[in-house]
């Protein structure tokens, strides 16, 4: 949903780091996107190509790693994937905050990330 503004911030933070190292060119940017964010990787890539045009990031490769949403249960100490409502009507499974093991309420641990993990650049 906010792919343009998010991607602008991603590019800005990489360029800032590149300037700090007097980099000539950025080769690669590795991004981690949680499955619970509203960021569509395809749209992020689309904006990335447009926003980096004319900068030292223009030819860089953007690799996006999806991170699964995970939850933790305080009652049975389950930690792992969400359970899903899987009604054929929904087309995609709907995540629920019920513990898949004991049915208690769980809290979200992972899945809300949008992290610039690492950058490869030539100095």
């Amino acid at each position, binding site marked *: *949903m906010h792919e343009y503004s998010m991607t602008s911030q991603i590019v800005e933070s990489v360029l800032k780091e590149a300037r700090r190292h007097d980099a000539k060119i950025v080769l690669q940017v590795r991004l981690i996107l949680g499955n619970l964010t*509203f960021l569509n990787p395809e749209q992020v890539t689309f904006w990335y190509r447009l926003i980096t045009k004319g900068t030292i990031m223009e030819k860089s490769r953007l690799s996006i790693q999806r991170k699964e949403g995970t939850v933790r249960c305080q009652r049975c100490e389950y930690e792992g994937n969400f359970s899903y409502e899987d009604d054929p009507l929904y087309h995609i499974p709907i*995540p*629920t*905050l019920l513990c898949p093991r004991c049915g208690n309420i769980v809290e979200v641990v992972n899945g*809300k990330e949008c*992290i610039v*993990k690492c950058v490869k650049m*030539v*100095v």
Partner: protein
Amino acid sequence: MKSGIKDVVKAEEGETYDIELDVNILEANERLAEENRKMLSSYGVEAIDVMGSIGSGKTSLIEKMIGFLKNRYRIAVFKGDLTTTIDAEMIARHGVESVPINTGRECHLDANLVSKALRRIDLSMTDLLFIENVGNLICPAEFPLGSDKRIVVISVTEGPYMVIKHPFIFMDADVVAINKIDLAEAMAVDVNKLKREVKSINPKSVPVPTNCRSGEGVREVVKTLGL
């Protein structure tokens, strides 16, 4: 070997650098939200997000809650909209502080806008703050503002699939008001099914059927919020 500091190791000209950056892009908003939260709690202000679809009745619900609460709490309302101050003026007529926040083109409030609005009110004269977000069931879920509790408002006139089409916003909701229940029959919408769907996505949340025109169910929303 001679002791003392050695020369700094640097990449040679043309060498490749691999840098662990680990920058969280959503963190800027989260940090500001945390500052808002601290400021509100230092003044003992309880802040409640009101989110929900366009025209679902967010402002009507706030107006009705003010009716129940204004004798016991000093209330302020932040009213997020793309443009206009129509709703903010409507709320101000109830004799509470009302700050319009116009986002221009943005589809959600963020912690920065809320922090600016916080400077417009006298927090020492405020007990309760409602922050009404822009009508939207998607974006506000991604931007915490610094409040303590969250209400999501949907209504039966949006059809029977509002909950399962937008599951994420319900994950952080404490109360889900299912509004305009007086129209449920005409809309052929099963309110109990909506309640079940809310509960299955987020068992912690409490779905409350409401009619914010007559006031039905509003007392229960207030009670569920612990007010």
